[in-house]
Every structure is written in structure tokens, then in C-alpha cells.
């Protein structure tokens, strides 16, 4: 019932958000203006308690890093960037500390926050300082591997993953290695290895299993094994049904397979995060729903708001918006190229290739061809697009 009613409630909110009514005086004192995020949620209560404790003793390092870590997890779960700001505030006494003297825990968290705003160089410098002091810091190696993977430095990422041997669990190591292998020429073997490790480590914590299973789903999809990919995505959803990255990945899989109808119930209640509203709106448009228009208008307003504050971390989504919902391939390819200069994951290549094919942009086409040639990336979902571009599929 709630799932059915909710979109209607949301629509009203979307309209006011996008259409910018004039400021008003509410008609009655009992009128609800805002619902605060999860007041009744135990995780939120715990955050509020920790925050109050830290306010009382702001220089308590263990407490500050604990709170920052929890805020980062919360941001990741909800896709809500405000928590990243709160995490940074928790680290305030050390945030501007010299790299050489800052505590290692702070450096790792600082790097995590830096990379969330795409300050990759600063993040890597912080992490390098941590592992210089203590080559046993698994967390630092893992974060480093992730940044190297996102920026397309596969040799370095492989090295960072390898430094986890003997310092982290099997599943973490193999998920790390498979993330790299699957985009740098050893996709089938990486997939098989990770599948076996996950099967033998069924007792791992749910979020970790969800992460590994999500990756397996993406890998299987790129290898063209759609039925198997579906199984992995469902396995991931069973382990962690709220995870916003997973929902986005599964929604993309469904859209790609022409199953837009199934995306609607999956994301109906999760349109607070741009990435998920984007997929939801694409699904609405694909199914010819009359409610597509206000959602598209809402997305446009959100991208506009992000632009006003000078954010550049939305470019991949914004390029997709321009291509799939706004009918503007020229803008899409411009954004996709800007995004590609910063991050180089399969999804970044996908939007770059699609925008290149739609706009006929020679530079984007060249970028796609060069990357495919250099890294032996296997991605069956790109085949049709690449044929259009005349690139080796």
C-alpha cells in the first residue's frame, strides 16, 4: 500500500521542488514542513549520541574517528552527501594537520572524504603517508586500490590489492583483485575465482557479501552471462536490500535487458538519491508512463542545484540524463568527456561510448577505441555501441 501511495506524495514534493513556488506562510500551525531523516532509526540515534559526546570532548581522537567512520557508512547507505560534511566536521581538529604529523586513522578517513569529492591526488598522498609509516595498514591499501581502480591505474591497483595478503580476509582480497582483473584482460578467470571464494565464505558479514555479489553480477553481465548475473544481483539484494550502489547496478542491468517495468517497484521508494531517481525516470520514460515528465523536471532541478554549488561529481549521471532523458547528445558527450578525464570505470566508458555514438564526436570515439585497445576490457553490453563506432568489439 505504502509503495503505491508514496510516489503520489513524492510527486507533490517534486513539483514544488522543481517549479519554485514563491515563499509562503503555512496555513496552519500543525502543517508538516519537513521529515527529519530517520529519527526513529537506531543507527541515527546512535549517531546523535556519539555526536553529543564528541561535542563535549572534541579532541578525543578515537571517538572522532569512530563518528567520522559511521557518518561515511551512513552517507554510503543513503546516498546522502550531508553525512560526508558531518564526518569532516568530526575530524575538524586534525583536518588541516600536516600530512607528516596527522594521525594515521585521520589520514585514512581524510583520504576517503577527499576521494568522495574527486580530490584523488590529495587522497593518494594521504594514503601513501599512512603506508609509509605502517605497511601493515590494510585499510589504507584497500582505499588506495579503490582510487587507483577508479582512475584506471590498473597496475598500481593490482599491487595495492596484493599488499592485502595476510592483512585482510580472503573475500576482501579476492574482491579487490577481481575488481581489477575484470577490467584489465582477465575477466573470466577473475570472475570464476571470486565466485569460488564467495561460495566458500558464506559466513562473511552481509555488507561484504553484498559487495562481492554485486561485483560478480556486474562481471557476469559484462561477460554476457545474463542469467547468472541476475542470480548474483538477487543474492546481493538478499544480503543488503538497501544498498544504493547495488540498486543502481541492478537497475542498469534491468534497463539494459529491456525490463524497465521491473525497475519501477525496485526504486520507487529510493528516489531521494540522484543516481536512483535517474534510473527510475529512465524506466518511467521507457515504459511510456505519464509521470516521467515531473521526475525529469526534478532531476533537471537537482543537477542545476549541484552546478550552482560548483559540484563536479555528478558528471557521469548528468551525461546519462542529457542522453537518455534530455535528448541532448552534444551536452552528453561534453559531460562524458569531462567525466572520463577523472574516472575510468566500465560505467564511465559505457556512457562515453553511447554519447560518442549518438553525437558522432570524433574525440570521444578515439578515447573509447584507445581504451579498449589498451586494456583488453571485455564488455558485451558495449558490443552494439562499439560496432556503431567502428571500434574493435
Amino acid at each position: 500500500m505504502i509503495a503505491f501511495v508514496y510516489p503520489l506524495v513524492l510527486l507533490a514534493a517534486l513539483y514544488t521542488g522543481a517549479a519554485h513556488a514563491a515563499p509562503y506562510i503555512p496555513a496552519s500551525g500543525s502543517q508538516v514542513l519537513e521529515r527529519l531523516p530517520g529519527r526513529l532509526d537506531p543507527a541515527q540515534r546512535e549517531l546523535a549520541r556519539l555526536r553529543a559526546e564528541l561535542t563535549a570532548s572534541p579532541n578525543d581522537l578515537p571517538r572522532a574517528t569512530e563518528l567520522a567512520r559511521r557518518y561515511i557508512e551512513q552517507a554510503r547507505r543513503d546516498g546522502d552527501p550531508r553525512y560526508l560534511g558531518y564526518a569532516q566536521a568530526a575530524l575538524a581538529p586534525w583536518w588541516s594537520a600536516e600530512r607528516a604529523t596527522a594521525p594515521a586513522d585521520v589520514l585514512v578517513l581524510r583520504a576517503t572524504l577527499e576521494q568522495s569529492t574527486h580530490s584523488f591526488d590529495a587522497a593518494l598522498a594521504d594514503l601513501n603517508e599512512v603506508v609509509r609509516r605502517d605497511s601493515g595498514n590494510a585499510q589504507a591499501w584497500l582505499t588506495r586500490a579503490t582510487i587507483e581502480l577508479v582512475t584506471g591505474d590498473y597496475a598500481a591497483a593490482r599491487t595495492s590489492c596484493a599488499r592485502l595478503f595476510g592483512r585482510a580476509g580472503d573475500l576482501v582480497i579476492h574482491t579487490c583483485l577481481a575488481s581489477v582483473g575484470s577490467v584489465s584482460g582477465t575477466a573470466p578467470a577473475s570472475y570464476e575465482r571470486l565466485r569460488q571464494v564467495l561460495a566458500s565464505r558464506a559466513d562473511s558479514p552481509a555488507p561484504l557479501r553484498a559487495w562481492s555479489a554485486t561485483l560478480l553480477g556486474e562481471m557476469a553481465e559484462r561477460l554476457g552471462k545474463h542469467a547468472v548475473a541476475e542470480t548474483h544481483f538477487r543474492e546481493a539484494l538478499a544480503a543488503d536490500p538497501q544498498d544504493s550502489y547495488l540498486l543502481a547496478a541492478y537497475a542498469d542491468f534491468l534497463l539494459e535487458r529491456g525490463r524497465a517495468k521491473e525497475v519501477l517497484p525496485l526504486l520507487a521508494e529510493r528516489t531521494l538519491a540522484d543516481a536512483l531517481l535517474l534510473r527510475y525516470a529512465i524506466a518511467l520514460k521507457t515504459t511510456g508512463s505519464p509521470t516521467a515528465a515531473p521526475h525529469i523536471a526534478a532531476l533537471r532541478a537537482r543537477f542545476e542545484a549541484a552546478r550552482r554549488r560548483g559540484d563536479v561529481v555528478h558528471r557521469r549521471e548528468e551525461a546519462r540524463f542529457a542522453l537518455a532523458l534530455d535528448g541532448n547528445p552534444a551536452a552528453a558527450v561534453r559531460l562524458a568527456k569531462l567525466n572520463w578525464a577523472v574516472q575510468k570505470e566500465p560505467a564511465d566508458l559505457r556512457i562515453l561510448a553511447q554519447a560518442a555514438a549518438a553525437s558522432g564526436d570524433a574525440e570521444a570515439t578515439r578515447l573509447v577505441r584507445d581504451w579498449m585497445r589498451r586494456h583488453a576490457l571485455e564488455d558485451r553490453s558495449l558490443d552494439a555501441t562499439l560496432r556503431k563506432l567502428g571500434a574493435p568489439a
Partner: protein
Amino acid sequence: MRRAAMQGALHPWLALFAALLLLCSQSAHAHKASDSYLNLEVRERQIEGRWDIALRDLELAVGLDGDGDGVLTWDEVRSRHAAIAAYALSRLKLSADGDSCPLQVTSQLVDNHTDGAYTVLMLRGECGAPVTTLALDYSLLADIDPQHKGLLALRHGSSTSTAIFSPEQPRQQLQLAEPSPGRQFLDYLKHGVWHIWIGFDHILFLLSLLLPAVLVWRDRRWHGRDSLRAGAFDVVRIVTAFTLAHSITLSLASLGIVTLPSRLVESAIAASVIVAALNNIWPIVHRGRAWFAFGFGLLHGFGFASVLAGLGLPQDALLLPLLGFNVGVELGQLAIVAVFLPVAYLLRNGVFYRRAVMVGGSAVIALLAGVWLTERVFDLSLLA
């Protein structure tokens, strides 16, 4: 192996989660980073405007949810209006030409942005005199959410200027009366003249190239030139080559097309001064000094770029300021030449000029530049 010891403290998958964050773009009644929207209009001494601040952010800053049920009603917000206004006004300071412009909140309304409901503070204020430059100090939420930004739109007459405030940029000045293009050109021309005059490394480089301009290198020694015209022509060629070259690199740097690390540039400039000075003592290049000036001028242009960046160029119309600055540098150099050349020409045939000024002066310049080079390469401070 320190394997087991770490496992307890580790959140091994956190890093990957965090990294996935940036793959999930976020924003708005949506998830979005925190912003406030500050719209002001200035008329003479009067300031009017509205300031939209998210209720969600104010909950953290002053507390709005009286009954703690996670829902904010109009009654709850209304009962905190005084606290909201006091908090907001304590975090925004306006001043014009050094005099503060005190603000008042005349009323509060409600509006929605993409990420939810905002309180709308209607503002009014007055400055001591008609405002030409407005300075704003903005620190709303800085301690609670350092990623919060204040988005300002300032209207005056028919134009609007915008600014983004953050903990990194809490204080900004906005020029209200837009200078006319001619005025702007002249302002930057002055900056150009001034910067060549206070840029000792540029002046010494130039002087090193000018010292031999009144001389000719024949039979392995310097002789005085026969005519002032030939010397003057030589000098203008050198100065213009230098200006042309640094205009090119200055423009490239200002437009963000090429940027070099400033320590590298500063060190290389010091090195170029040494080379130019030593070339007077043991001449290797003497016919092609204009080319020499051009080559090193490319380097000096990057040095000017940091100066220009510090002046805060208007991002939409760079051309005129750039041109003005470059013309100013050229004029500044020609002014130095105008003083130097007649004196040097008068002294050119004496031993004093050829020995003391030419060789001695060049040696002093080379030594001084050597000190700079050491300072800049090793990031030291030798000359207080």
C-alpha cells in the same frame, strides 16, 4: 606479521564502500549537500534580501524538533524563529568600505528547494554610505558541516554578481559599480607597470641583457657603440621580445591552458638571471640576445601569472585585463630603459662602465640570483 592485531579495528570494506560513494552521484526532496541561498539587492545605502536556510541544517545548529518525533511542523519552526534569526545573523557580517552594515530579520517564511523545506529570512540592512564594494563574512554551519556552501546572488542596478562561500572562502568582496572597460584596462595597465617595478628578478634579468646594449663585442673584448640609435634599437628589440614571450605564457597560464608548479618556475627564473649575468662576463650569446630574451621571457610569463591570479581576474572577460597588464609591463620596462640607456651611453667608453658596471654589476647580479636560486630550490629563507 601483524595480522591478527589489526582485525579488530578494521572495517575492511569501508574503503570500498566509500569509493562506491562517488559512483553513486548524490543530491536532492532529494539528497544533496548542504547549501544556503542568499539573495541580496543593494540600492545606495540600503540592503534588502532573502536568505534560505534548510530546516534540516537548522535542526543541527539550533534545534527545531521540540517534541523529538522527527517531524517539523510550522508551530515548531515558528517557535524557534528568534533563535534561528540570532544564529543566522551571528554567521553573516556585511561591511562596505570598512564600515559594517548591520542586518535585521524582518520576517520568516517557508519555501522548498530540491532537498526539502527551508526557512526564508527576509533581511534588511543599512550601510553608512552608498555602497561601492560590499564585503561579506560568511560562517554559517562551518563547524557543523564544512562542506556546506553559501550561494550568493547580489543584485545592483541591472546586473547580478554571484559568489560561493565555504570554509575555504569565508570572506569575499564584491565590486558593485562595474568598472568601464576603459577603466579596467587602465587598472590592469597600472598593475603591470607596478609589478615589473617591484619584481626584482625580472628587472635584474632585463638589466643583465641591457648592460651590453651600448657596447659591441669585438676581438674578444667590449667596445663602446658609435651611435645611441643603434643601442636604443637593440634595447627596444630585447625588451619587446621579452614582453612578447611572457605575454604568451602569461595568457596561457591565466586562461588555465598551461600551468607549472610555482616553485619550479621561480627557481628557473632565478637560474635565467644567473645565465644572463654570466653571459656578460664570459659572452657566449651576444648577437642573438633578443632571441635569448624571448626564450627566457616564456619562463618569466609563468612567474607573472601567479601575480595576476592574486589580483582576481574577472573570469568572463579576461582579454582586456590581460592586454592591459601586458602593455603595462612593456611600458614599465621601457621606463626603466629610458632611465638606464642615456646614463649607460654616456659612460660606455670609460673603463668604469666596462669593468665595474658591466663585469662587477653582472657578478653581483649573478651572486644575488644564486642566493635566490638556493632559496627557491630548497625552500629556505636566506635574505630576510
